[in-house]
């Protein structure tokens, strides 16, 4: 019962956010927050460009989304799978353990750090 309520709430919030990010263009509108890390340091954080990437993706522009934040685009299917496994953690502990294997987490951490470094060097 409580679980259903939480899921309904999350879906509602996602729908509202999805509508906002579909209707308004982050490159043209002032209502979207700018990355704090970028403002403070002048360097991009691993998440920079996510808002523009989501806007592009909601308009079907996969290439544009990739340009704004390649990591986000690549991570979306992975996140979806992990979220599913998270919901099934007790019922299907094997899937959860496989997705959370140390090797996979290491791999993601390495990709993340490399992505962070390279996007600041080559941009």
């Amino acid at each position, binding site marked *: 019962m409580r679980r259903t309520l939480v899921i309904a709430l999350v879906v509602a919030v996602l729908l509202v956010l999805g509508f906002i990010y579909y209707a308004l263009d982050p490159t043209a509108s002032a209502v979207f*927050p*700018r990355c*704090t890390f970028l403002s403070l340091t002048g360097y991009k954080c*691993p998440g920079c460009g*996510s808002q523009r990437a989501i806007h592009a993706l909601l308009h079907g522009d996969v290439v544009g989304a990739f340009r704004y934040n390649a990591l*986000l685009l690549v991570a979306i299917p992975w*996140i979806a799978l992990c979220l599913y496994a*998270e919901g099934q953690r007790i019922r299907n502990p094997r899937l959860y353990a496989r997705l*959370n294997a140390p090797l996979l987490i290491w791999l993601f951490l390495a990709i993340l750090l490399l992505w962070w470094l390279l996007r600041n060097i080559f941009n």
Partner: protein
Amino acid sequence: MQYWINHNGVQHGPVDIDGMKELGLTSAAYVWHEGLADWVKITQLPELQGTYEMVEQAAEPVVARQSLEQQGAAVQQPQGYEQQAPSEPCPPTNLVWAIIATVLCCIPTGIVAIYFALKVSNKYREGDIEGAKRASETGAWWCIATIVLGILSLPLGFLMMSAGAA
């Protein structure tokens, strides 16, 4: 059939069913025999009924289980018992939340949360359930901290933006 028993932290065995009746076992005991993947509660093996007395469950089953695993691994390995991945499900690694927080919150502390996810996974593989649970909790706090900092820093981003525009 020979059984190995762990009763309140004390190891017995190998003994057969008749031998077990003389040990004064209770339902809090764990047993293992050749062919079992992991230790089981004595109450789970129907053939052992009558070798133990029913008592209330021990207050700290997790701790009891853990010391059991350590002893079990040390004592049983020569008998061909290899330490298996614990049957208890893995504590939450919070990995998804750490990734989402890192990619969406503009605060790189999410990376620390990912590091703790790695720690949970590693400790779980080693059979250190308690350590995995501790790392899981710390990691959860790093996720929360990243999200809260991300939200708190929103006004800062606006300020910097208007300062830059002015």
